[in-house]
């Protein structure tokens, strides 16, 4: 009991004497942060001029409720292009997207899809572990309680996507040249 009282007193004293205002970070759900970042990718990444259509297509491969978070950006404009959000059920549908999100359940199909998308200006984004090592462009991960973004610049370059410096400074840049198939 004496210990309990001691602790209670300590709590009161310690809790209410220290009071310097600390700068606190925003707290958001993981999917909200990731959706926000995807919006910023559209803003700070340039697609090769030939695909500059009037709209920019954000797609989700496979069933994923993450699409609901992305839907919230549909209809907004970024760099004078209107955002559309849809789900891509197969590879041909994925090919016509500007940004393609692949969730972890698409892990098994990824190697095949990567070969299919080779050289096409589709920015691939995923939460799959080790995605950027396997030819993917952007991988969402965690560092502590913050979201970490890995960017495989070689893969992005091969797809003729240009990433602006402001974004490059924030992400973790990795290099993983695409394996040369040469067959």
């Amino acid at each position, binding site marked *: 009991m004496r*210990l*309990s009282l001691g*602790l*209670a007193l*300590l*709590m009161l004293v*310690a*809790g*209410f004497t*220290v*009071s*310097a*205002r*600390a700068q*606190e*970070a*925003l*707290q*958001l*759900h*993981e999917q*909200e*942060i990731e*959706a*926000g*970042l995807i*919006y*910023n990718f559209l803003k*700070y990444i340039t697609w090769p001029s030939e695909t500059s259509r009037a709209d920019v297509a954000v797609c989700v491969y496979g*069933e994923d*409720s993450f699409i*609901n*978070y992305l839907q*919230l*950006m549909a209809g*907004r404009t970024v760099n004078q292009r209107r955002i559309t959000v849809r789900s891509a059920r197969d590879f041909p549908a994925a090919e016509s997207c500007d940004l393609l999100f692949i969730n972890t359940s698409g*892990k*098994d*199909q990824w*190697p095949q899809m990567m070969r299919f998308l080779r050289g096409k200006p589709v920015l691939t984004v995923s939460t799959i572990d*080790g995605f950027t*090592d396997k030819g993917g462009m952007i991988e969402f991960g*965690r*560092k*502590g*309680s*913050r*979201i970490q*973004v890995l960017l495989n610049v070689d893969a992005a370059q091969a797809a003729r996507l240009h990433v602006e410096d*402001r*974004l490059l400074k*924030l992400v973790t840049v990795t290099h993983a040249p695409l394996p040369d198939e040469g067959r």
Partner: protein
Amino acid sequence: MVTHCIRVGTGILWLTGILLALVVHAWAADDVDRFTLSPEQLFNATVVSVSRTSERVMDAPAAISVLTGDDIRRAGATSVQEALRLVPGVQVAQVNANSWAVSVRGFNGALANKLLVRIDGRDVYDPLFSGVYWDIQDVMLDDIDRIEVVRGPGASLWGANAVNGVINIITKKARDTQGVLAAVTAGTKDRTIAEGRYGGSLGENGHYRVFSKYLNRSDLETVAGSSAHDGQQMGHAGFRADWDGTPQGDFTFQGEAYDNRTGDMRLLPTFTSPFSELSLEKIEARGAHMLGRWDKAMGEDSNASVQSYLDYTMRKQDILGDERITFDLDAQYELPAWGRNKIIFGAGYRYSHDTLTASPYVSFTDDGEDTHLFSSFIQNKITLAPKELFLTLGSKFQHNDFTGFEMQPNARLQWHPDDTQMIWGSIARAVRTPSRLEHDLTINQAVLSVFGFPAELRLVPNTDFEAERVTAYEMGYRNQLTPELSVDLAGFYNDYTYLSTLNFLTPQLISPPFLFPITSTNGGRGNTQGIEASVDWRPLDNLQLAASYSLVQIHLIGPPSNVAINSTAAIEQSPSQQANFVSRWDITDRIALDSTLYYVGAVPGFKVPEYWRLDMRLGWQILDGLEFSLVGQNLLQGEHREFSSPTDIGAVEIPRSIYGRFTWRY
């Protein structure tokens, strides 16, 4: 009585005040548009999780282990309790086909009472015996998002009886279980498990799932080689609906109902020679619950949540019938940072009513009882040095009908020398409040033969039984050495007082049947100490290796054996050393081979020798939506006992077993 009314009144006022404050605040807070945030702001944002603390495991100043849904699947476990074998510091032993003994840091028993278990925020701890009936906690494994195991008293946030640990089972949000899932398991021990689930959406932000599961576990064999009549048939069905990210916050509604049939074999006392008779008991259990939760982010770093549930359980055994209804209301509020303080507080109320049915073996002082439990907590995480040094001070305050007011304070210090390392220490006090068993029940434990005459060993209630108490001292160290390699160490010293012992009262030896009354008293004290260590290593993209070791040493001092009968029994019911080695190997994109090797030290109380247990799983993704897995359990031995004496009539051997499972998703 008057003071009781005042306390109750104060509790209700407290609660109303908090609810009011929450509601007012909820409508005042406005939403942030995620798409106007700069990349810098987003990179700096911290991730909120749905659990009570939004800290990631790595940053939590406690001995925490997390099992993900994937960990459970790859261990080849078919139940939550079997999956807990993976966690260091947790003792899991199968008693028979339908019963498990699970505890943390010692004191194991079939109804181990120093552990709090919650499923989606609902306590599944049975207040009649202060234990968990694991047979009815049958969660659909694919629905499990994660199981958080906190070793040591988590008392400042999680209520009473979390003396040695808390197990939080958290299921996935409905949006993560969309589409169709059908799974069939067939095997030698788990004879049939059939699961079906469908998830769809509800308007713009809503999702739901409905599921049902049938389970049939075979009878196991006794040591003597006959059937133990302990198989299990269970059916349950349920739903969960979530609305996420609405302007009013996140909402969850979920509910479930089950029907469970098991059995067991035991000797029941009689007053005629040989003073016991074999009983093949049929046990029926039924239950249902409904839960609602509201969660709302209040601006940048503040959060409010209110949760309520209604739970009905019924269990009918030959020795006792028990029907219970529980209502629980719980609210918590996380204040925005105030200077260096981050305060979170909450309050809760629980009403529980039980109706007991007596038998020739069990009787009680009153057959129905209303109990009221009021609780509140406050915790302050103080930043002593930004990003480096934090002190968390908190306490839970509780008022229960058996022992009145209980206070459970807790102080934790954490130091992050750099981004990858953390050192933490904690001092906490926790209590295990009395159960109805100790307070109200009279049980005919056994009839002994004294010179050929029957003598009853009778457990009588003790209304003065106090809460068991612990002061726990803990320290730990975690290091993410490289992205592929992490280590986690924890050490503890627990000092227990007021431990339950069964003491003899004055016997009645005038005429047969003689009577030896015994009662629960708080005559025991003692300490436990131990360590837990785990390593996780991903040497290759397709290979994960993990190992853990745990040690617990128990020292108890109770009244001598002529005064008490079980004062040091707990020493002998938990293995002092345990270890496990896990390997998960993705041979190709579609084929995986997983092995788990467990070592469990001897359990002298049941004459169980040390044993090694090997479980292996071969997983094959046949088509995109179709998976097959083949699992062999307990491969090294034909059979072994885990938690029963060879002389017990119902003592079973846990056999080598095998099962196959098809999972189809669409």
